[in-house]
C-alpha cells in the first residue's frame, strides 16, 4: 500500500512543472440589499418546490404547528439541547403533534427514525440567496440525519443570515479555518430526474422542505 503511494508520488514528481502563477481569487458577490437577498432566496426555493414562510421569534412555533397539521404530520423530531428545542418543549401547544427528541445514537433507534417519524426541525448556519440554499453544520446537539430521514424537514432561518453567494459565506464565516465534521448545503427537497428525465420529488431524503424565516 505504501508502495503505491511512493510510486504514484514519484511518477507525479518526475514531471517538471512551472509553478502556476497565483490566481486572482475574487469573491463572487452581488450588490443585493437584505430584502433583495430574501426575495431571491425565496424565489429560488419556490422554484424547487420548497415552502418559505415569513414569521418571527414570537409566532414561529404556532406557524410551525399549522404547517405540520396541514401536512398531516403526527410527530416532529427535534434536537432538545438547542434553543429552539427548548421553545418547542413549552411552545408547541397541540397534543396532536408528538415531539420526539433526537437524544441517542442512531444505532439505538434507527428503525424508529426511518419508519415512524413524519417531520423534523433544525436550525441552520445561514443561507445563500443566489442559489436558494440553506447552510447546515450538523453537530453533537443537532445530528446529521435530522435533515435527511423524516419526510418533512423544517428549518429555522434568521433573515439577516442570508449571504449573497456561497463564496461570500465561505469567506465571511471563515469556513477554511474552522470547518465542521460535516457541512451541508440544502437547496430544496430530495429529487431525481433519472426516470425519463421527469422530475420526481422525495427520492431518498425529505419529500418536503419548509423554511421558516425569522424576521
Amino acid at each position: 500500500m505504501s508502495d503505491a503511494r511512493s510510486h504514484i508520488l514519484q511518477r507525479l514528481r518526475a514531471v517538471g512543472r512551472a509553478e502556476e502563477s497565483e490566481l486572482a481569487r475574487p469573491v463572487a458577490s452581488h450588490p443585493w440589499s437584505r430584502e433583495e437577498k430574501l426575495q431571491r432566496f425565496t424565489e429560488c426555493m419556490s422554484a424547487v418546490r420548497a415552502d418559505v414562510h415569513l414569521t418571527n421569534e414570537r409566532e414561529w412555533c404556532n406557524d410551525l404547528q399549522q404547517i405540520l397539521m396541514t401536512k398531516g404530520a403526527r410527530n416532529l423530531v427535534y434536537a432538545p439541547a438547542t434553543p429552539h428545542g427548548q421553545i418547542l418543549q413549552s411552545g408547541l401547544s397541540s397534543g396532536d403533534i408528538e415531539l420526539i427528541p433526537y437524544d441517542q445514537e442512531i444505532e439505538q433507534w434507527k428503525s424508529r427514525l426511518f419508519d415512524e417519524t413524519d417531520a423534523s426541525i433544525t436550525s441552520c448556519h445561514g443561507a445563500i440567496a443566489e442559489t436558494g440554499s440553506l447552510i447546515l453544520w450538523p453537530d453533537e446537539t443537532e445530528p446529521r440525519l435530522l435533515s435527511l430521514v423524516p419526510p418533512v424537514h423544517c428549518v429555522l432561518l434568521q433573515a439577516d443570515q442570508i449571504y449573497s453567494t456561497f463564496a461570500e459565506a465561505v469567506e465571511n464565516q471563515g469556513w477554511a479555518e474552522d470547518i465542521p465534521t460535516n457541512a451541508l448545503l440544502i437547496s430544496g427537497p430530495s429529487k431525481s430526474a433519472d426516470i425519463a428525465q421527469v422530475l420526481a420529488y422525495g427520492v431518498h431524503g425529505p419529500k418536503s422542505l419548509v423554511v421558516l424565516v425569522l424576521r
Partner: protein
Amino acid sequence: MSGEFHDGVVKALSNEALRGHLRRAMDSLIEKRLAVFPDSDELESLRHRCMGIRANALSKLPDLLVHLEARCEEQGIRVHWAETTAEANSIVLEILRSHRVERLVKGKSMVSEEMGLNHALEAEGIECLESDLGEFIIQLAGETPSHIVMPALHKSKQEIAELFHEKFPDIPYSDDVDELTAVARGILREKFMQADAGLSGVNFLVAETGTLCLVENEGNGRMSTTVPPLHIAVTGIEKVVERLTDVPPLLSLLTRSATGQPITTYFNMINGPRQPGEKDGPQEVHLVLLDNGRSRIFADEELQATLRCIRCGACINHCPVYTRLGGHAYGTVYPGPIGSILEPQKEGLERLGELAEASTLCGACGEVCPVRIPIPKLLNRLRWEGVRHDGSGETAGQGKRRKQSQALAWKGWSTLASHPALYRTAVKSASRFRRLLPQQLGPWTHVRKAPEIAEKPLRELAEEEGFSHE
C-alpha cells in the same frame, strides 16, 4: 476493439426508438444549460477561473495530495493509495472484511465503475447495492451506465416500468414516474438501514481542509455516507483542489453545465468520522486514491489537460456522435468526448485509439467544457500518437494504430501536394478524365452521390480570367 466498436455503432444506429429518445434528452439538456447561463460574459469569466483553479491544482498535484492526506488523517479519515483498479478493489475488500461487512450500499461513483467494484465484491459474497435511482435501475437491468451523470438515460419510462414489474412482481405495474420513484424509495430506505457500510465517489477533494465534497440531488449520497457505521470513498488522484475558496466557482459551473441546475439539492462536505458526542455519521471514514493511468497522462504537458475534467458531462450532452449512439456503443466506462480522450490514454491506443477517430472534430465539446479542456485538439493529438513512430512520448500504445498501407498513401499524397507541378498535372488529369472516374466510392456513396469533378481546375479558370498569380 475495432470490431467491437463498429458492432456497437451499428446496433445503436439501428435502434430507432433509442435515437429519438437520445435526441430529445440531449435537446432538453442543451436547452436547460443554456437557460442558466444567460450572461455569456459571466460564463466565460467563470470558465476561465475554473480552468485556472484546476490547472493550478494539477501544477501542484503531488504536494496537494500529500497535504490532503495529512489533513484527512488529522481529522480521522484514513487515506489509501492504489496504482491499479485491482489494487483499489483489494483495499476496499480488505476494509470491508475487517469489519465483517455483508451488505454495502453505494452512492453514485464513476471511479467504482472504472474499478468494476461491484463484480469484485460480489465475487467475494458481499452484496453491493446501487442507491442512486439511475444506477439502481441499470443494476436491476444488469447493464452499465450510458452517461456519467444520468446513468439510465437510455431507458424510456415504459422500459423502466416493465423492469420494475419483472423484478418486483408483488408491486402493481405502473409507469407513473412518481410511483416508480416511491417503489425505489421504499426498497432503498430498508437497505440504507441494514447496510454495514456505505461507499461513495467524490466530486472535489480540498487539500487545505481535508474535505471530501459530494454533489447530488437525491439524498442517497448522504444516506450512504451517514447512516452505515463505515464509509469508504473512492476517487481519482486528479480530483484535488488547493483551497476551500476554489470550491464555490467549481460547484456553480459543475451543476449548471451538467443539468442546468443553479445548484443541486445537496452539497455534502465531509471532514471526518463521527466525533465524540455526535449521535450519527460513520464511525470510520476511508479515502481510496486511485491512479489507474492518471500519472501517465499527467506526464504529458498537453494531454494533462484531460485531468482537469470535473465530470459534468456537458461535452457528452453536446456531442453529435454521442447523440446518435448513446453511451453503450463506446464500450467504455466514460463515453462521449471526454471518454474518447480519457479512455484511449488509460487503456492504451492499441485497444481504444479508434475512439479518437470517431469524431468530426466539430468542436461542440470544447465550446461547452467548463474547464476549457481543448478536447478536439487532444483528439487530434491522440490520432497522431496512434500512428507516430518516433518512439517518444508517454501515451500507452503509441504507434500501434499505424498501418503500412495508410502510411504509404499519406506519404504519396504528401509528395504530390508538396510538388505544385505534379499536383497540377494530377488535378488536370482528374478533370480531363473525370468521366472515367468511379461513381461508387465505398461507403461514401451509400448515402451520397460521388462528388463531381469540375471541367476545369480553379487555377486554370483563374488564369483565364487574368487573375494575378505571383
